[in-house]
């Protein structure tokens, strides 16, 4: 009961995404596929799901070659993929979505049958999914559960979950992993594509580590730890995972000053950030973090209050903020930070108002120089200016954004969840760049839902609760639990 890739090869243009990969998925096992962003994990998934055609090698089911796959054939063989970004139709119910996907090869629909199948599988797996709930009304965790159930209804015996816990709270993530283990125990093959090595350690019976399109490690349960996996993923001489601590606030010159801000859920906020400081903003999501980021970067005009950068008023004026050297790294980088359809170079110069040419046309030489500098500094791969930004992996997209924002004169940096969804090496590169910006004299604000990341680089921690500053201490005066407590104070 196995599904195998042997000698799989896949190139996109001149980029070899998968280069001679042998991998075997067995029924009854949780198989974790790990690697950095861009290591080729998604391509492997797309190859067994029939989304991409193989350039070389073949797929074997129970040792027999199955010939070229397309999506339909892959589904018939029992390959079901639940992607990181849910694909259901929002306005339809779960059962209708299941029927929409399942009825493709039939003449008529069978909605009652779909409802029953959803209910049955929900019951069997313990995934709570209501067949009649409208997909648009579900939380992201519920949608994901619905998609897993849908894959099972469609006959998945090789169930691939792509970064399933990236969008879940820690509690939800644990619950999902329980279900994953149970499904494997019942005879399914579950493939976990993930960065979260803690989860791999917890749930995987077998791990395949990929790097640069090749398999660099195969392990069975007990023969690996998250630390050995991290080393393998990054490879030797490929840059370290170390993030040096910031020099810290030796300076007192205030560069970013938010004065009496009220905006949306942010009820009242005074905050001064000095050169060299990295202020970590912690808080349960939805306590005004989004408003804080938008106000601090001039994108949102607060109802009350002013924002000053180096003494200059930039309130509600993004153009002034850019001129004043405010760097922005939004949490949703695909939608808010990059033009995925445009080439890398266009994204690099997107915020530059001068130095990229004039009426004679774009100054291609200057643009190339800028772009190459950003690519080199943050190690964006592949290092190609003309590549569409959308062709980069998640980690490289974030490197590109950080590189663009931190190039040139930076006075203040406002970043939201800078390492979310990144592999360890990309995360380390991003955090190093932020520390370097602070050491270079910028005022840095890191808004993060991940406390560990925040505590790793912050020189000062501010907790937002109920739209106000609940706690404001230097890093040395707080620990994980005191910050956590402050986040969770319940108000009447």
């Amino acid at each position: 009961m196995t599904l195998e890739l042997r000698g799989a090869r896949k190139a996109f243009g001149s980029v070899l995404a998968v280069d001679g990969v042998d991998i075997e998925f067995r029924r009854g096992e949780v198989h974790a596929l790990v690697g950095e962003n861009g290591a080729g994990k998604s391509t492997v998934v797309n190859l067994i799901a029939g989304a991409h055609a193989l350039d070389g090698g073949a797929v074997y089911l129970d040792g027999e070659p199955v010939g070229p796959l397309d999506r339909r054939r892959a589904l018939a063989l029992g390959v079901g993929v639940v992607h990181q970004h849910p694909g259901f139709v929002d306005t339809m119910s779960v059962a209708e979505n299941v029927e929409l996907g399942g009825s493709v090869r039939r003449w008529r629909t069978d909605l009652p049958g779909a409802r029953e199948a959803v209910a049955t599988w929900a019951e069997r797996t313990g995934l709570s999914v209501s067949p009649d709930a409208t997909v648009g009304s579900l939380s992201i965790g519920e949608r994901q559960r619905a998609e897993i159930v849908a894959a099972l209804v469609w006959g998945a015996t090789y169930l691939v979950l792509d970064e399933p816990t990236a969008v879940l709270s820690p509690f939800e993530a644990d619950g999902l992993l329980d279900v994953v283990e149970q499904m494997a125990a019942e005879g399914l093959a579950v493939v976990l594509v993930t960065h979260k090595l803690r989860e791999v350690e917890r749930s995987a019976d077998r791990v395949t580590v990929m790097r640069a399109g090749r398999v660099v490690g195969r392990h069975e349960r007990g023969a690996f730890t998250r630390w050995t996996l991290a080393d393998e993923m990054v490879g030797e001489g490929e840059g370290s995972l170390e993030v040096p601590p910031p020099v810290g606030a030796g300076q007192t010159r205030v560069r970013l000053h938010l004065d009496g801000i009220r905006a949306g859920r942010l009820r009242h906020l005074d905050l001064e950030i000095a050169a060299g400081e990295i202020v970590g903003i912690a808080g349960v999501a939805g306590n005004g973090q989004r408003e804080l980021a938008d106000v601090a970067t001039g994108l949102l005009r607060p109802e009350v209050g002013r924002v000053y950068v180096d003494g200059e008023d930039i309130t509600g004026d993004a153009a002034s903020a850019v001129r004043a050297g405010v760097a922005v790294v939004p949490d949703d980088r695909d939608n808010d930070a990059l033009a995925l359809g445009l080439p890398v170079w266009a994204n690099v110069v997107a915020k530059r108002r001068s130095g990229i040419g004039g009426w004679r046309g774009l100054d291609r030489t200057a643009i190339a120089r800028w772009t190459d500098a950003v690519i080199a500094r943050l190690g964006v791969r592949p290092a190609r200016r003309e590549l569409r930004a959308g062709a980069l992996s998640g980690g490289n997209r974030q490197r590109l954004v950080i590189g663009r924002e931190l190039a040139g004169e930076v006075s203040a940096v406002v970043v939201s969840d800078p390492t979310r969804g990144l592999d360890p090496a990309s995360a380390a590169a991003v955090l190093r760049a932020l520390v370097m910006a602070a050491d270079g004299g910028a005022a840095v604000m890191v808004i993060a839902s991940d406390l560990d990341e925040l505590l790793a680089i912050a020189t000062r921690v501010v907790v937002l609760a109920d739209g106000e500053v609940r706690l404001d201490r230097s890093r040395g005066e707080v620990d994980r639990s005191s910050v956590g407590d402050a986040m969770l104070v319940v108000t009447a």
Partner: protein
Amino acid sequence: MTALDATARPITADEPAAQGRSIGVRLWTVTAVAVLAVLVAVWITSSIDPLTAVRELVAGAVDGRDRVSETLVRAAPLALVGLGAGVALRGGVVNVGGEGQMAIGAVGAVLATLALGGTPTPLVWLVATAAAVATAALWSAIPAALAAARGVPEILSTLLMNFVTVSLMAWLLTETFLHDDDPYVITAQGDRLADRLEFPTIMDGTRFHIGIVVAIVVVVVAAWWMRTPAGLRIDLFGANRSLAAQAGVRPRRAQARLLLISAGFAGCAGAVQLFGISHRLTPGLTGGVG
């Protein structure tokens, strides 16, 4: 408008686009095969040689001085209106009101000629064309304002404005001072322009007028402009408005500006058609180029 696509060149290697492309390729293949099948069926069942037909089609457009010039005469307003729509589209703004904007531009040009009276001809052309551009831009300020204030999709409002313009033209050309002075004319049409205001033709015996040269120059300049940093900013605005906002672009303003610029090109087409071909306001002046 291939010239306009040059700045942001998409590149090959990537996963989602590769999927999109294969669907695109399949769609094209299916369409091409279907069209080919119909053509072959027609060929087999009729006695006409299709190659003759193709030859006639091409010859009709480019065979001889008359036909080349006539092709250009027809192409000039199309190019200007299309250019306007294309520039806006690069910024993600869909202007399908080119037809109405062109007509209203021509009205603006006529009003300018009436106001200018005996001014030297080249100056009248210049001012009247500017007036056409301004009138069309002003006309598109209605959908632009609706979009900015109420979020009305410009694709709908600009389309519907075409119908408003048709009625407005009919009224202007029958009920107002713009109606032809000739008492025997009862149809909707305007006064004939003074002879001196007609664009001179460049080739004898054809309708190849200097407005066509103007159109070509405008197209070249616009194509050039789209390859400058300003053009790149339009591309960025079209590709990701959040990113453009972070770069200091105000989305509502930028959208309105693009719509106005786009309409300006259509207005220019109105002036070119007025002085070059129709020499008077008529309901059919635009020739359906929108």
